[in-house]
C-alpha cells in the first residue's frame, strides 16, 4: 500500500467553516471552496487522479482556510499539492517562469533599472504584456531599484556592523533586494540602534512564488540552498526577515510542504516584529520620538497564519504618537503572483474591495502592513502610501534625534 504524504484530510469533520472564510469562493462561483477542493476531493484523487478538478487553480493559497479550520487540516497545502501533482504544466509559460523567479526578474530589472522602470510604464509596453504575456495592463508593476540591497549593504553598511556587540542574520528576500532598498536599510539601521550588528547570507528566493507557480523542484533546490547558506560555518545567530511570507516559507513550508529538513534554522528564525517585541520587552528599546501619525493597519494573511499579528500590533503600540486603527482582517486579494495574472486579475480586485473600502472609511494618513504584495495591492487601489512597521520605527527614531 502507498504511504500517503499528507493524511490531515482525514481529520476533516466536514463542517464547511473554511468555505465560509474563503475569500475566493466568496467572489466567484468558479471555485467550489477549500473544503471541496481540498479534503473532499483528495480522497477521490488518491483513488483516481483522473477525478481531478481544474477549479483548483483558482485557489490563491492565502491560507485563510487553515486559519479557520478547527481540526488542524492543512487545507491549502492539500490544494497546492494536488494542483501541481495533477495539473501538470502542458507547455512552457514564459510569464509564469519569469514571475516565479523573482530573483532572476529582479536581477534584470535592477541591472537596467531606470530603463526597465521607464519601459514598464509605457502604454505600448503594457499593451504587449497584456496581449502576449497575459499580465493585465491595468495592474501597477513593481519598480526596480538601481542597485540591489545586497550590493548596497556590502558597499556602504557592512563595515560598521563590527562595532556592535551582538550579531544577527537578516534574510532580506527578493522584494527588499530588488524593489525596496529603503526597507532594507531601515531594518539595518533599526537593528544597529538596538546594538545588533547585521549580516546577510548568500540567499536565493525563498520559494513562495515558485510553489505558487508549480516549480516545486526548483523551490526545493532554493530551500536547500537557503538552509545551507543560513547555517554556514555552524552559524547559530538569530535570523530575522521583514517579509511575512518568506518567514512562513522558512519556518513552515520548507518542512511541511517541501519536505526539507529545516531544523537547523527553525528555532532561530522569526519575523522581524516578533524579534523586536521580545527585545522591547526586555528593555532594549531604541530612542523614539513622537511621530504624530494616524495609521490604519492591515494584517496580511500569511502573518496571521503564523500567529504573528500580536507581535506587530504589540510593537506598533509602543511607538509614541502613533494612532493605530486595526482594520478587520480581510484578504487584499493579490496573493503574490495571483493578482498579476490576467485570468485572475478580476477576482483578485474583487476580493480586495472590502479592504479598500475599510481603508477609505478609516481616513488614515498612511497604511501600515507587513507584506510586500499587500503593499502593492493597497497602493494601487487606494490613495494611501503603505509603510512597513520597521520603517515606522525608523521614522520614530529619526523623530527622536531631531529633538
Amino acid at each position: 500500500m502507498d504511504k500517503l504524504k499528507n493524511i490531515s484530510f482525514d481529520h476533516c469533520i466536514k463542517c464547511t467553516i473554511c468555505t465560509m472564510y474563503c475569500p475566493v469562493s466568496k467572489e466567484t462561483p468558479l471555485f467550489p471552496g477549500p473544503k471541496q477542493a481540498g479534503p473532499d476531493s483528495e480522497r477521490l484523487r488518491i483513488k483516481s487522479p483522473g477525478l481531478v478538478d481544474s477549479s483548483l487553480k483558482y485557489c490563491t493559497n492565502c491560507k485563510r482556510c487553515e486559519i479557520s479550520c478547527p481540526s488542524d487540516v492543512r487545507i491549502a497545502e492539500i490544494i497546492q499539492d494536488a494542483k501541481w501533482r495533477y495539473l501538470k504544466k502542458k507547455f512552457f509559460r514564459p510569464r509564469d517562469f519569469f514571475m516565479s523567479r523573482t530573483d532572476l526578474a529582479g536581477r534584470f530589472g535592477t541591472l537596467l533599472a531606470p530603463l526597465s522602470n521607464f519601459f514598464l510604464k509605457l502604454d505600448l509596453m503594457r499593451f504587449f504584456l497584456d496581449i502576449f504575456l497575459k499580465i493585465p495592463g491595468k495592474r501597477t508593476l513593481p519598480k526596480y531599484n538601481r542597485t540591489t540591497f545586497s550590493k548596497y549593504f556590502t558597499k556602504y553598511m557592512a563595515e560598521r556592523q563590527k562595532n556592535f556587540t551582538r550579531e544577527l542574520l537578516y534574510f532580506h528576500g527578493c522584494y527588499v533586494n530588488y524593489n525596496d532598498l529603503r526597507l532594507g536599510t531601515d531594518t539595518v539601521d533599526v537593528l544597529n540602534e538596538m546594538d545588533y550588528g547585521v549580516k546577510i547570507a548568500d540567499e536565493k528566493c525563498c520559494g513562495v512564488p515558485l510553489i505558487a507557480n508549480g516549480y516545486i523542484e526548483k523551490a526545493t533546490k532554493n530551500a536547500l540552498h537557503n538552509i545551507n547558506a543560513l547555517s554556514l560555518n555552524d552559524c547559530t545567530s538569530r535570523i530575522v526577515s521583514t517579509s511575512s511570507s518568506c518567514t512562513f516559507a522558512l519556518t513552515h513550508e520548507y518542512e511541511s510542504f517541501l519536505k526539507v529538513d529545516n531544523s537547523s534554522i527553525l528555532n532561530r528564525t522569526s519575523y522581524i516584529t516578533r524579534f523586536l517585541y521580545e527585545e522591547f520587552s526586555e528593555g532594549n528599546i531604541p530612542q523614539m520620538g513622537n511621530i504624530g501619525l494616524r495609521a490604519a493597519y492591515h494584517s496580511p494573511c500569511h502573518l496571521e497564519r503564523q500567529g504573528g499579528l500580536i507581535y506587530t500590533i504589540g510593537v506598533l503600540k509602543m511607538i509614541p504618537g502613533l494612532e493605530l486603527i486595526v482594520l478587520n482582517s480581510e484578504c487584499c486579494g493579490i496573493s503574490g503572483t495571483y493578482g498579476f495574472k490576467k485570468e485572475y486579475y478580476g477576482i483578485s480586485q474583487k476580493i480586495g474591495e472590502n479592504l479598500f473600502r475599510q481603508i477609505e472609511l478609516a481616513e488614515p494618513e498612511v497604511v501600515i502592513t507587513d507584506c510586500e504584495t499587500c503593499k502593492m495591492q493597497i497602493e494601487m487601489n487606494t490613495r494611501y502610501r503603505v509603510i512597513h512597521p520597521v520603517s515606522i520605527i525608523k521614522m520614530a527614531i529619526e523623530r527622536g534625534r531631531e529633538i
Partner: protein
Amino acid sequence: MKYDCVIIGGGIAGLTCGIRCVRKGLRTVIFSNGMNSLHFSSGSIDLLGYDREGRKVHSPFTEIQNMKNQNPRHPYAKSGIDKIVESVDFITRELSQEGMIMTSNGRENHFHITNLGVMKPTYLSQENIFNSESLNMVKSDCPIAVLNFSGFRDYFPELTIANLKKNNLFKNREFIKGDISLKEFDEKRRNHEEFRSVDIARIFNSERYLNKIAQKINKISGQAEIVTLPSFLGIENFRSVNRKLRELTGKEIYELPTLPPSIPGLRLDYALKNIFYKAGGEYVSNDRVICGNFSGRKLNYINTENSGKYGISAKNFMLATGSFLSGGLTGSYSRIHEPVFGLDTFYNQDRGRWHSKDFFDKNGHPFLSFGVETSDSFTAIKDTTEISNLFCAGSVLAHYDPVKEGSGGGVAITTGFTAASQMTGKF
C-alpha cells in the same frame, strides 16, 4: 509578552470573558486555534432547556434554584442565580449595542422552531428567528408559508411542515410550501454542485436581488402573513435584508436555523468578536497554546506553537478550550485528559459506563459531563493543588451535560463572566 489576562479559546465563553475584561480596562488577548463552535450552533442561547427527567423547562431560574441541592458541583450551582442573571443581561446588552437584538420571554424560556419543525426551549433568540413569540404577532388563522431556495441542499420544507402539524399550536394552520428560484442564482450553480447556506447568504447579503425575491415570495406565499425561510438572509447585513424584505412583501419574514455552516451562529460570532476588537482586545486567530510554566499555586506563562523561547505571561489566565469536539478534552482508553496543562479531570473510572447504549438516551451520555475539576470559584486544579490565577469556563468544565440539559450557551456565558469578575477583582 505581558498581559493582564490571557484567554485560551475563542468561543462564547472566552469572548464573554474577554469582553468583560477589556471593558474593565485590562490588557487582554485571546488565543484561538481555528474557529469556534458557534459556527455549528443555532445562534440561540439556551440557559436551561430540560430538567433532570428530560422534561421541557419553562422557568429556567426556578429549576436552577433547585440545582444547588440536586447537583452542588454544577457550574450554575457554583456561580449562583445572581451571577447568571448579571452575565446574561450583560451579554444581551453588549449584543444589542452591536446591533444584534436578542428576543426573550422575560425571565422565562420561549421556544424556537428548528428546521425540522420541532419546538426547542431556549432563553435568547435572534430577533429574526421563528419562535413561539413570533406567532403572537399575527392573526391566528392565517396560513404559514414554508419556503426554500431551489438548489439549497440542506433543507426540506416538507419535513418542517409534517412536524409542525404534529404540534397543537399549528394543528389547524394551513401551510404553503414553495421554492424560490431565480435565473441569476441558477447561473451561479455548477452542474453537480448545489448551494450551501453560506453561498445563498452571500447573495442575500449583497441586497442586489431583494426586489425580485420579494416578488417571488409574494407570488408563492399567497394569503400567508408569516413566511419562513432557512436562515441565510444575509450575514453582516442581516438586519437590513430582513427589514427590506418585510417592507417589500408586507409579510412577517422569519428564519429557521439550518445545518452547519450556521449563519445565525456566524452572526453571533461576528458580533461578539467585533465588540471585543472595538473595545481594544487582541485576538490571535491561529495559534495553539501547548503548555504552561507553573510554580507553586501560580501559572507564570504559557507557550504557544509560535511563541518561540519567550513565553506569554499574564496576571490571570483562563482556559476555555471547549469539550471533545474542540480538543479541549481528549480521551484515552482509561482516562480523560486536559491536553494543555494536564489539569485534574473528572470522569468515571469504569470505562464501560462512559456512554449509554441508546444514542438518543433521555438521560444523556455520561461522558458529556466529564471535564476539568475546579474550585467553587472556577480556579483550576492541577495535581490536587488549586492554581489561583488560572480559571476555567465553558464546556471544558465537568459536572454538567450541555446536550441533555440544553445549557451550553448559558453555562459558557455565566462561567466566562464569573471568571472575568474574579480577574477584575470583583465577585
